[in-house]
């Protein structure tokens, strides 16, 4: 028996090893994956990002070469530090600090020593590069802006963050990604697809040749160029008009839903966020919490729209049959409803019908229409839902589905809203009467206002607003070709439009007419409040204007919001006229209006509202430090923006 112990041990031992090896090699395949991470180095070939053009094919955004100076600390030989620093225009302290940082990251892996040098900065250095062993350069492609406007529409590109890398397997650390604007919404089209090359590497991360002779390598796919629906000239002009003001302009082509201009003010030159100054300038913009240059007011500024909302109140009244064109209400400087509550109105003739109700913007008239609409139904909750559905059929109170990454829903109340506000019930038409004139619970953004005007211009339908006109190689999203019909019959738009036309003939926009162009429009004034020193203070009204033109064959619908601009006809109205003329005629005849608006500055008003903080923040921001060309266009002289 003693003979068998050793052979048994040998056989059992060998079998145990085989089982373990079988487990490692055949059953558990996690090791196979790990080995690939271990030994294969992946190198990416980044394709050039697609160009961005305007609706007429004018180049807006292209690319420029930029150079990162890279360092592998371990390979650093004795170099002439003084010469090196002079060439790159850095101090010796910078040099030591950057090198120490790279060493902390890894002595043998490459680190970015100095990022994003432009061509001229790099040229001098490149000649001497061979003298600096351990340093090399890496070419990158950065955005090059052909224009100094449209920053909010374009967005920018930035390095991907960790969360996104975890979520989206396409991106690796250090990759660039579009952020905000069309760079974000059309990221996948603009960026193309990066190519992949696999290299065999050793444990020091050194390449030791191509992996499997490049069997798995892929070629980069070029990013596609896109055309925006933007009219570059109109966009530029809008931004010029908004200098020294805050607010937004949205212009839409009613027949297609194409966004012709999307202006927010204050804005900035997009090129200040490229290259080495990006992080410094971005920080400046980001922390300007008062002027908020990164906040796209055209898409995000939610306010009670005020008078322009009367258009919908009137249309719904007609549709519900509670009034017709001849229905007359008497107005004596206001409308009183229940227990001494009173809605003030302006001075005009007491008897009001639809037409003069619109052009006089009579609160009494529309309060009455609204009351009739709500009182038509037995229960106010039913009535409010009917009304709410009519309003929502204009695309309001919801995300519109346009192709820009930011937005606000706005708010259109319904019975649920009031159930929440008045849990015990007891509300009726008079309780919610403010809705009739676009106050109360109603909130809209400028793009929603513009879309409302486009819908009115179309007499009852709209296309979802969009910024994309053409993608090379692919079709644009078919949802932008879908006609959205409102719940208002076409016939009710005619009297409304003639009322809006009379706003220019007889009403609040008499002074804003442009000879030869029939404009239909509506002024608006949105009240707003702020907390100053813990007290709720009523601030200067926001100036609002909506319009479309020409009246009989609408080519442009526009909404303008100027924060604290006062009456609608004061600032927003003239801007609407100028924008419309600019778009339709490509030149300006109302030079008086133009001069007035260009010279209007609300800076002092904002300084007063925002306290001293903002004013000082602006003044201590010297123009030179924030980039080239114009710097922040909001505060630069008008001439400088005209250079394009």
């Amino acid at each position, binding site marked *: 028996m*003693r*003979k068998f*112990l*050793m*052979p048994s*041990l*040998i*056989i059992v*031992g*060998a079998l*145990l*090893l*085989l089982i*373990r*090896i*079988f487990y*490692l*090699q*055949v059953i*558990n*395949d*996690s*090791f*196979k994956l*790990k*080995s*690939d991470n*271990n*030994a*294969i180095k992946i190198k990416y070939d980044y394709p050039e990002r697609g160009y961005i053009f305007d609706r007429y094919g004018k180049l807006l955004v292209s690319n420029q070469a930029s150079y990162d100076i890279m360092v592998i600390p371990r390979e650093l030989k004795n170099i002439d530090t003084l010469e090196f620093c002079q060439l790159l225009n850095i101090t010796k302290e910078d040099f030591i600090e950057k090198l120490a940082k790279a060493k902390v990251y890894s002595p043998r892996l490459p680190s970015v020593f100095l990022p994003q040098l432009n061509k001229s900065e790099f040229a001098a250095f490149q000649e001497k590069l061979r003298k600096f062993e351990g340093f090399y350069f890496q070419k990158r492609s950065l955005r090059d802006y052909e224009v100094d406007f449209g920053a909010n529409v374009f967005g920018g590109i930035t390095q991907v963050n960790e969360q996104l890398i975890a979520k989206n397997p396409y991106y690796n650390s250090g990759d660039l990604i579009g952020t905000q604007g069309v760079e974000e919404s059309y990221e996948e089209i603009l960026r193309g697809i990066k190519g992949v090359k696999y290299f*065999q*590497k*050793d*444990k020091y991360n050194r390449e*030791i040749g191509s*992996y499997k002779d490049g069997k798995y390598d892929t070629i980069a796919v070029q990013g596609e160029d896109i055309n925006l629906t933007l009219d570059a000239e109109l966009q530029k002009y809008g931004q010029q008009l908004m200098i020294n003001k805050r607010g937004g302009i949205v212009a839409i082509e009613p027949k297609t839903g194409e966004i012709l201009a999307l202006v927010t003010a204050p804005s900035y030159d997009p090129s200040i966020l490229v290259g080495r100054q990006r992080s410094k300038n971005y920080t400046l913009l980001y922390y300007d919490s008062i002027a908020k240059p990164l906040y796209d007011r055209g898409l995000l500024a939610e306010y009670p729209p005020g008078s322009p909302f009367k258009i919908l109140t009137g249309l719904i009244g007609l549709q519900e049959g509670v009034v017709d064109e001849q229905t007359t209400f008497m107005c004596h400087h206001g409308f009183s409803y229940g227990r001494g509550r009173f809605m003030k109105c302006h001075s005009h003739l007491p008897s009001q019908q639809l037409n003069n109700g619109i052009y006089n913007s009579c609160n009494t008239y529309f309060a009455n229409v609204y009351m009739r609409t709500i009182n038509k139904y037995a229960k106010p909750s039913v009535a409010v839902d009917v009304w709410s559905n009519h309003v929502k059929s204009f695309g309001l109170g919801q995300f519109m589905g346009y192709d820009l990454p930011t937005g606000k829903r706005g708010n259109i109340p319904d019975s649920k809203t009031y159930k929440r506000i008045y849990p015990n019930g007891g509300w009726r038409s008079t309780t919610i009467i403010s809705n009739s004139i676009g106050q109360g619970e109603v909130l809209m953004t400028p793009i929603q206002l513009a879309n409302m005007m486009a819908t009115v211009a179309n007499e009852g339908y709209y296309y979802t607003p969009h910024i994309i006109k053409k993608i090379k190689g692919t079709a644009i999203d078919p949802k932008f070709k879908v006609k959205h019909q409102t719940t208002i019959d076409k016939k009710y738009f005619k009297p409304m439009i003639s009322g809006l036309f009379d706003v220019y003939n007889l009403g609040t926009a008499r002074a804003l007419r442009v000879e030869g162009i029939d404009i239909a429009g509506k002024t608006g004034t949105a009240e707003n409040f702020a907390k100053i020193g813990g007290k709720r203070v009523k601030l200067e009204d926001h100036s609002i204007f909506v319009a479309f033109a020409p009246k009989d064959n609408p080519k442009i619908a526009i909404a303008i919001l100027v924060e604290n601009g006062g009456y609608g006809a004061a600032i927003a109205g003239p801007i609407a006229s100028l924008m419309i003329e600019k778009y339709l005629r490509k030149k300006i005849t109302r030079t008086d209006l133009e001069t007035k608006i260009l010279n209007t500055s609300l800076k002092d008003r904002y300084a007063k509202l925002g306290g001293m903080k903002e004013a000082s923040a602006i003044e201590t921001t010297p123009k030179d430090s924030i980039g080239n060309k114009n710097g922040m266009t909001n505060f630069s002289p008008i001439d400088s923006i005209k250079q394009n």
Partner: protein
Amino acid sequence: MKNQSIKKNLDWTCILIYSALVIMGWLNIYSSSLSSIEDTYQKQLLFIILTIPLIFILLTIDGKFYEKYASIIFGVSLLSLAGLFLFGKTIAGQRCWYAIGGFTLQPSEFAKAATSLALAKFLSDSQINLKEVNRQIQALAIVFLPVLLILPQPDPGSALIYSIFIIVLYREGLPSWYVWTGFVAITLFVLTLVLQPQYVILLSLLVILIIHFKSRLGDRNIVLSSILFAIISGFVLSVSYVFQNVFKQHHRDRFNILLGKTVDLKGIGYNTNQSEIAIGSGGWLGRGFLEGTQTKGGFVPEQHTDYIFTTVGEEWGFAGSLVVIALFVSLFLRVIYLAERQKTKFSRVYGYCVAGILFTHFFVNIAMVVGVFPTIGVPLPFFSYGGSGLWGFTILLFIFLKMDANKVNEW
């Protein structure tokens, strides 16, 4: 002619397997050395070529020589081990090499053959009966003398190999309780590290109680059972104590990694993890010769020496591993078979020692590489890079093959 008869009587099966293993070993060293700047595969080729004259010398020496001079060889070997403390060269903290010219020589690789010869010589005396305690002590002394010299180098790997002599001694009549004790001790050792000592003690109490009450009434001995329990408890507690207080942190780490208690893949667990990754990436058929990404990348440390089997696993897959293991097992069983048919006790014991030593190296090395044994420096016979190892194993094996070829002449 004498030479003719040696050629005829040599066991060519063993020589064939030996040659196959050496050649395969070299191919894998070649593959793994492509990633490093050292020309290890050239050196190893030189070592392999030098084994040819070595084998000729071994086969030329008369078979009786080894039996005659076993004690002297053993003495010289012990002296060479002791000499390390004075003249040894320290490499990676281990003082177990002599530096001669550009090469280093590891006497512990030769000490195994010497110890085997000495043990065979001692047991071949027909007067020796391993049932006697005195003889047991003498036999164990032969085995543990070299261990005492090797352990403080420190080279626990080489020292560990000597435990296989217990099995050889068992074959020659050592009482079976030695083997049982060893088996129980190893089991308790592993259990203590995996579980908490108190659970192991409880478990052993349970087992002892079951044995106690299952045995026939007359065989029950409450005193014996209690002593047994006391010894086991003492052992478990001392294992736990030694592990926590005597072992150095890096020793503990090696065990803990193995037991999955600590996971530090870049640090202490790096070797084991990388070798598992390399082997695991092989799949059924491997990545192919010179195609191993892990091997080329040089991720596995010491790949050409102790971790050479990872190259086999990665580049040749499960199929290749199976072939290598099958070759080794065939060699071991063949040597045991040859040993059993020896006419003299001397050559039988020696043959057993050869099989045992080779097997222990084989088992400990591969077990370590596949992550079921703590990291310990033991080469894979005939495969691992290194002249001392290759020559040591060659000498070990061919002395036996010479004895085996001689057996006919002895009549």
